[in-house]
């Protein structure tokens, strides 16, 4: 027996999206399975790993812990939408240059968390980067190249005076 489904309007990456969701469906399920926005990953589905991190009304949240029914009045941004921003592009280049990912599963969540950090603090030190990224798990890199990449992107953005 399946749960009743309802039609909802969500605001995702600046556009209205109509979705059919069950009451228990998370924002992550809707993004990935209905809107084909697959950057956010389903890792633990428990809010621990950070692979599903997206932005809601300007703040990072776990998409797996956000019920779609609770997102109808929210402005949702995913990596697909943030891709065009200069700060995100600088982070992506730095992640590639520093080999800050191997399997890549954590990278979208890492990028969202790093982007949120640079938005509020354009000149973080390494400890601030580690603190800001502490909610995102990576099982490949050992984290060191991720910290280097975020610092490098921040320095690049400051040099370009493109800091968000």
């Amino acid at each position, binding site marked *: 027996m399946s*749960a009743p489904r309802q039609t909802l309007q969500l605001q995702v990456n600046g556009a209205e999206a109509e979705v059919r969701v069950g*009451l228990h469906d*998370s924002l992550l399920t809707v993004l990935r399975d209905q809107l084909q926005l697959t950057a956010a990953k389903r890792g633990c589905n428990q809010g621990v790993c*950070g692979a599903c991190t997206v932005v809601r009304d300007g703040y990072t949240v*776990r998409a797996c812990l956000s*019920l779609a*029914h609770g997102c109808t009045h929210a402005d949702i941004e995913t990596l697909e939408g943030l891709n065009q921003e200069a700060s995100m592009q600088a982070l992506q280049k730095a992640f590639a240059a520093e080999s800050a990912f191997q399997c890549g599963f954590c990278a979208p969540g890492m990028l969202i968390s790093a982007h949120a950090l640079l938005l509020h603090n354009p000149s973080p030190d390494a400890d601030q980067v*580690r603190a800001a990224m502490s*909610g995102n798990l990576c099982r490949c890199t050992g984290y060191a190249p991720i910290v280097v990449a975020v610092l490098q992107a921040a320095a690049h953005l400051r040099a370009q005076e493109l800091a968000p």
Partner: protein
Amino acid sequence: MLQGFFLPETVDQATALLAQDPEAKLMAGGATLVAMLNARVIEPAALISLSAIPEIQGISVLPDGRIRIGAFTRHRETAQCTLHLGAAAVLRHAASQIANATVRNMGTIGGSISFADPGLDYPPALVAAQAEVEIAGSGSRRMVAAHDFFQDWYLTALEPGEMVTAVVLPKPQAGAHGVYIKHARVAGDYATASVAACVSAQGQIRVTVGACGPVPIRDDDADALLSEDRSESALARAGALLQARADPLDDVRGSANYRRALIPRLLLRAVRQLALPVGALQ
């Protein structure tokens, strides 16, 4: 199976919904509740989201100077709030050490304390700060001291049909201060053990231990001792009194003995931090 999702706009509407359907669950930030739904640990008949109730959002100063933190206030807001002065700083310190930035954007103080996991950061901080919990039922309101709110493992003073609407902190005093010292395995984990400590302008100390028993642990004699004497021997005696009251479990975060051993060490750090000159309200 979930059959309903409600979005009440007042506390009365929320408690009326809860009265109609005892199988419904209140949902605040969802950081814990949705994880439990995903794991199928709970399968409520309906969810009552508290996200659209203005009365329980945000932090304000009451006419008598006390600080009221609405139940739906996110940890991020509590961690950044400049109203948490004097002893109330303990709450700011505790909020800033919960999980990670993303979870602090989601979780709320009302959701956190209603869940009442003994490893949470708010319970010892609220007990140390002599906070009160504002509770609403169907047509009723009452206040409960934080010390009495936490009753046992995951058990609070909330009766069926009731919800937390706010946490109220005493009016901040100039010269008072509060600190929260947390020991965790890794950044963002629940506490293995923690100590919250507040000192009044007159030097009265109030210490509370977290994650070392079903509820936050206090000892009146330890507080009286430390209020008079903060020498190493007094700290050791106070630490032993608190250890004697602890009733920790063995779990993945540490053995019961390890937790007991942490108490005097965290107490030492907390009292040393309290002793730092605080100057004006901060």
